């Protein structure tokens, strides 16, 4: 318990000493917390995007089958639905109709889909995402949506419903159409689909099902939900890693700055260490005191930086990083990220920021602490 009391006394002294040099220490904390803020923002934002992608994929089909022709995706024949459904373990095989529509008026691409039976709009009507409504200025109730495929062509659709913005990440550029309208609008023959979707009841059977199906349909490409999830995870990991590597340069610069600050002791500080040693502190006590000092500075900067990053990412929507991490498009959804930070991220952040700082300051601290009292006071 003696050791604990000693540490408490040291911490006590350190706080008093820190507050005596308020301006210098606050400046240090401010710069440090800026670095923490950069790193933490990048990490929080990427992890929120990963979560969002995971949540979005929950509803994705287990297995998607695409027809390949000349190495590119082509329309798939409805005959294959039965082939796929005949494989044991495969359920709910359905043909999907979807495509992209380039809107010359707004210069944006819309995703046009035929929804499943429950959500199907009646013929002549569409359901649109809030991004489309925004891009086309459909502010008033009942405003029709005119779509033109080529010069002199105009198709009128009534807007049955506009998606709420809480699902904006998925629906901002979405345009849901009736199946008959879709085939007519895009001239899709009756027995063709964009791709097929199926569910596989047992997740461990997916690989086997893909194996069997690819023998039955050698021209098709099979995409499982895990493939998509893996790709998203890799993509976001990579983007986060890039941001962190960039921020690490800032961390390095800060470590150099901190080492410089710690080695250039002011006359007053040198005198303080001299007096402490003269009244009986030994080198270990001074080092311990200085480590406490570093600890308080790191902790303050860590808390400040992390809190600011949290506010930046989850309340303000990460205005500084969004263009890099999200990507870019004409219609971009305005969405709020679901707040969520896990312990491992904080541990990573703590290691990533305080360890270089501590490593950079130990040598100057030791140099100051081990000097002779009369040498530093003179």
């Amino acid at each position, binding site marked *: 318990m003696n050791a604990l009391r000693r540490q408490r006394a040291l911490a006590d002294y350190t706080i008093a000493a820190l507050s005596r040099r308020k301006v210098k220490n606050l400046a240090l904390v401010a710069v440090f917390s800026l670095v923490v803020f950069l790193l933490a923002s990048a990490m929080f934002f990427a992890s929120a995007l990963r979560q969002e992608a995971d949540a979005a994929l929950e509803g994705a089909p287990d297995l998607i089958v695409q027809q390949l022709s000349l190495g590119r995706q082509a329309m798939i024949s409805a005959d294959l639905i039965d082939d796929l459904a005949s494989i044991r373990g495969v359920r709910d095989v359905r043909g999907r109709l979807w495509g992209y529509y380039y809107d010359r008026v707004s210069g944006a691409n819309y995703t046009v889909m035929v929804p499943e039976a429950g959500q199907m709009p009646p013929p002549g009507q569409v359901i649109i995402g809030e991004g489309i409504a925004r891009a086309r200025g459909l502010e008033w109730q009942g405003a029709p949506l005119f779509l033109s495929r080529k010069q002199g062509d105009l198709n009128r659709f009534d807007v049955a419903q506009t998606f709420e913005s809480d699902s904006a990440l998925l629906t901002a550029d979405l345009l849901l159409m009736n199946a008959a309208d879709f085939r007519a609008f895009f001239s899709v023959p009756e027995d063709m689909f964009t791709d097929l979707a199926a569910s596989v009841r047992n997740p461990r059977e997916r690989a086997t099902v893909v194996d069997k199906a690819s023998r039955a349909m050698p021209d098709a490409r099979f995409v499982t939900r895990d493939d998509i999830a*893996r790709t998203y995870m890799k993509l976001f990991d990579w983007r986060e890693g890039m941001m962190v*590597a960039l921020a690490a340069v800032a961390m390095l610069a800060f470590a150099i700055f901190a080492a410089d600050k710690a080695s250039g002791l002011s006359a007053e500080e040198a005198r303080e260490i001299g007096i402490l040693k003269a009244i009986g502190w030994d080198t270990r006590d001074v080092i311990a005191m200085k480590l406490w000092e570093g600890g308080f500075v790191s902790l303050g900067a860590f808390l400040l930086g992390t809190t600011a990053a949290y506010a930046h990412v989850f309340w303000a929507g990460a205005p500084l990083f969004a263009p890099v991490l999200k990507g870019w498009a004409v219609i971009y959804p305005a969405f709020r990220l679901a707040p969520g930070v896990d312990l*491992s991220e904080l541990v990573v952040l703590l290691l*990533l920021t305080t360890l270089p700082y501590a490593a950079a300051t130990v*040598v100057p601290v030791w140099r100051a*602490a081990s000097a002779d009292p009369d040498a530093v006071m003179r």
Partner: protein
Amino acid sequence: MIFRTPILTLLLVSFLALLVALGAAWFGQRLVRHWDLASGSRAQLEMERRTELVSTLFAMVMLAEAVALFLFVFNADRMAALFVGAMCAVGTLNVNGYGFPALYAKIAVFFAAAVWLIVDHVDRLGRDYPLTRVKYALILGIAPLVILAGGLELAYYLNLRTDVITSCCSKLFTPANEGIGNEMAGLAPGLSLWALALAELVVLGLGAYAVRTGRGHALFALAGAVFFAVALTAMVSVISLYVYENPNHHCPFCILQREYFYIGYAFYVPLFGATALALGLGATAPFQRRASLEAVLPPVARRFTLWAMAGFATYGAVTLLVIARSHLILFG
């Protein structure tokens, strides 16, 4: 190579540890050869002064290494989604041949670091550098381990390829294959539970003896090491079955996942902490009679022993809790 923040962090920790270990080892070999407390020479004074720096730095990176071990496993578990066939840390570590060796090396570094930190702590209690020579001799042993662990880790991360199909834990920990994991999985559940209970009794008994008499710490350390091995065996052979409520799933890593409420950490943190303390106590036991330590070491040793006993007891308690709450009935 996968560009992931935890990986970058782990590599940073390993790199700093490597630098510090090399520096400390260079200083250590000089110290071991020339250390002479009686001498008042300039070189000796310089060395005494420099030990403060080296010890502080080394203690810092050893602490970071201890945190890094848990981060390493946690990250491996998280990355399982990236590899076809992986469902937990086992699959990720199996992606290439460096994964498991890196884990074992990191565990070795963790225990070595813990022993060193305890020796360092005890050394600082005495005013005449009682264990300094021992401390630096230890660094000479630890430095190659740190280099090895860092190298294996780097090789592992550089060779991570996501198009490799890896095998999952249910393949590795089955009695049907050959290898140590399967030997552990094949052990009769009843036998390993009895062995765990016996080891628990022995380690707590020896701990109580050490607390009461202030002796027998070396024996306690040995018992702690045995308990560690028995506990891991029991984990693979029987405790995991109760956690998963499945008589065939033996994986010691899946219990770290969210589905099982991260219960694995309640097992491993006390177990690793207690074993580290016990080993450290064993390492300092021969020096209890040193003049400068005679007065200050016993209370510290007592405290550490009590903490270690608490850790070992926690492992047993969590085991009982898991068995009591599980719906699996293995016996009767």
